[in-house]
């Protein structure tokens, strides 16, 4: 099939950037979206045009690197699917496709569709971990965890840190990402100890990094390739309320 692509081209963080229009011809419906982009890039190279820079790594939906807003949907039109797992059979011959980077103040564009997502790493550094004392390796089943809690924690742990929730959110908020980490760790006895501090430090870091606040719009859940539920945001809010009486020390 033949398609018309409108792709965001931006030379660097300082460049204003604009949409460029390219033809994608003889595309097989069995190609993945990224394979289609590879074909288009080969064509551009032959014409002496700089190929479109885009992020990708595993191409099997687990690393969270691929990141494109396709016709207004982060990760494209198919629910619970990363760009790399999206196939061209989701499109029709003659379609016009708009491809843009994640847009957020916290994610500066490096080039074309590639953005700098290290702000999310700093959110994790702010509290998305459990402190473990050095010493012998604890016995795997020494701490019993109720099955329901383990499963809820695993649901939250499915987050691959792609940032589509931020890209989808009308407020550019990272609340779903933060909530998935807060929710996962708060459900487990190992994470419970630091739960109160974690919810404060992570949500504070979110504002410091320039992400927006949550207005309960839920576009994040629709965009999330792992289907992380906004119930974790409700849980985050609950964790914050429970942290209130504990008193929170600013950075130590």
């Amino acid at each position, binding site marked *: 099939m033949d398609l018309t692509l409108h792709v965001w081209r931006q030379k660097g963080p300082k460049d204003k950037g604009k949409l460029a229009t390219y033809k994608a011809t003889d595309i097989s419906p069995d190609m993945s979206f990224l394979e289609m982009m590879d074909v288009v890039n080969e064509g551009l190279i032959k014409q002496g045009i700089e190929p479109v820079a885009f992020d990708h790594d595993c191409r099997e939906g687990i690393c969270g690197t691929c990141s494109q807003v396709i016709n207004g949907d982060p990760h494209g039109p198919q629910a619970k699917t990363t760009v790399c797992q999206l196939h061209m059979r989701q499109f029709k011959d003659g379609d016009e496709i708009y491809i843009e980077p994640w847009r957020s103040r916290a994610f500066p564009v490096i080039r074309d569709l590639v953005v700098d997502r290290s702000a999310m790493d700093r959110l994790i550094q702010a509290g998305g971990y459990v402190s473990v004392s050095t010493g012998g390796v604890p016995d795997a089943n020494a701490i019993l965890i109720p099955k329901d809690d383990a499963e809820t924690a695993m649901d939250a742990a499915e987050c691959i840190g792609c940032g589509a929730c931020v890209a989808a959110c009308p407020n550019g908020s990272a609340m779903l990402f933060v909530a998935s980490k807060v929710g996962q760790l708060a459900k487990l006895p190992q994470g419970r100890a630091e739960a109160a501090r974690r919810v404060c430090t992570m949500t504070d870091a979110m504002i410091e990094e320039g992400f927006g606040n949550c207005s309960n719009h839920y576009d994040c859940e629709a965009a999330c390739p792992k289907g992380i539920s906004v119930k974790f945001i409700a849980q985050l809010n609950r964790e914050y309320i429970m*942290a209130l009486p504990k008193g929170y020390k*600013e950075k130590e």
Partner: protein
Amino acid sequence: MPLKHLIRSAVGRKLFMAATGFILFGFVVAHLLGNLSIYLGADGINAYARHLHQLEPLLWVFRLGLLAAVGLHVLFGIILTLENRSARPVAYKRKKHPRSSLAGRTMIYSGLLLATFIGLHLLHFTFRTIGPQIEMLNGDMPNVFRMIVDSFRQAGYALTYVAAMTVLFFHISHGFASLFQTSGINNEVTLPWLGRLSRTVAIILAAGFVSIPVLIFFGLVIK
């Protein structure tokens, strides 16, 4: 936890929005129940107004509390909205909204329209600086029934109130469900129907308020 942290936190400020929104919502419900006494005729609503004024000192406590709630709600509403806007300096050329509602994304506009309406409404029925002249009943109590009926016989007033209550519908249709999510009272069981409940509550409230100017304007039920 120091208040200082609460008013800077992403969650803390939303808790202020929810707490003040809850107070305003409670007031709106109580106000509607009071207004419905107009269906008992002139005696009904005038008796209600008289009882309300007999609570005088307590009434002022309520009024000041409401004023504080509105003030905080507007203040944090504006701060949050400005911050959220600045989180996306470059807009998308194409953007879909698969889950969010128009009502949700325009809370600041419905909110500011409501603030304008509240000002107008106070000038109209509380300070009586606008609207038709009305007689006083024994002492300084206005004839509330006549005041309302004479106003809503005029298309301008009836339409303004109907429009304002439509705006209220939009604000509550997102706000009511938001209350639960923000205060953490939400999970996978309640999530699917909370949105629908919210729209139903908003419809009932708005329809209750709207019924009064509409029925008066067309001269139905209330003569």
